[in-house]
């Protein structure tokens, strides 16, 4: 039978040890003020920058004005700018009617209508796309 190694351990032994241990607990050294100051200084030196306890609720999206909504409809301010520029160019062409453009218009319209002009203002038009009829011709 295995002997219990505590068999020789008496109640008096336990009681005496308990009193030594109680004295030991009572005699725990208090940290000096200097040690506490050093440790707190370390803490403050290592402390991350303050930040709020919880993440703030996301701000409500700002209400969009009429102009912003129009811009959004056209795909943004960039697209709207292009649209405005094209409109202005069209208006300018309509009012100014530049000469070369008039000749080009006459050439195109004349060819289409069979009234090609021969004046100096006319332009030579080259049809870069052959008529489909050419492909239908046998041989």
């Amino acid at each position, binding site marked *: 039978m295995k002997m219990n*190694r*505590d068999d020789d*351990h008496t*109640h*008096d*032994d*336990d*009681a*005496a*040890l308990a*009193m*030594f*241990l109680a*004295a*030991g*607990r*009572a*005699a*725990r*050294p*208090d*940290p*000096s003020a200097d*040690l*506490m100051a*050093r*440790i*707190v200084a*370390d*803490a*403050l030196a*290592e*402390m*991350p*920058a*303050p*930040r*709020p*306890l919880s993440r703030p609720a996301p701000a409500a999206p700002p209400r969009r004005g009429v102009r912003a909504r129009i811009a959004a409809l056209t795909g943004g301010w960039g697209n709207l700018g292009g649209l405005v520029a094209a409109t202005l160019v069209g208006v300018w062409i309509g009012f100014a009617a530049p000469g070369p453009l008039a000749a080009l218009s006459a050439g195109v319209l004349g060819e289409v209508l069979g009234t090609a002009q021969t004046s100096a203002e006319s332009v030579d038009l080259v049809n870069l796309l052959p008529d489909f009829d050419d492909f239908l011709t046998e041989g």
Partner: protein
Amino acid sequence: MPYDATDTPEEVLLARYARGDALAARILSERLVPRALGFAARMLRDQAEAEDVTQEAMLRLWRMAPDWRSGEAQVGTWLYRVVANLCTDRLRRRKTVPIDTVPDPQDGAPGPVAGLIAGERAAALDAALADLPERQRQAVVLRHLEGLSNPEIAAVMDVGVEAVESLTARGKRALTARLAGRRADLGYEDEPG
């Protein structure tokens, strides 16, 4: 004060410190430093070295505060573990110092006087603790002087609970044997058990 300093868990205080709350650092220091220092002093028997170890352990706590993983460990247990490791390092470096240089209890100097101050009893205990193997000393100090539970000590020492029970039992037996000769000197024979 924005929160109750006595009831706030240490883990919460550490999280507050990590968010830049200086008051949390002070409260944590007041709670943890006496425990760390008491443990280190028992292990090293050198107040200056114990203070250095305590400061180093607390510094490691401050530095790891932002990365503290909630629920993985108790702050106090973690700190005891760091202190234990730092003490072990220092004790190993001390190995060249002969054990004879460790002060012995002064046999019979005070005599069997009933009015012995408690400090002498504590000094006798410290001397007896110093004779224990390091692991036994750790276990006994954490269990019977720092008041940790066996599972907490197991976490500190990185061993199983059964190993802790064995270490504390052997440590207590050894302490009892070493203190047997001091009981009469320190007036314990006359006190009620």
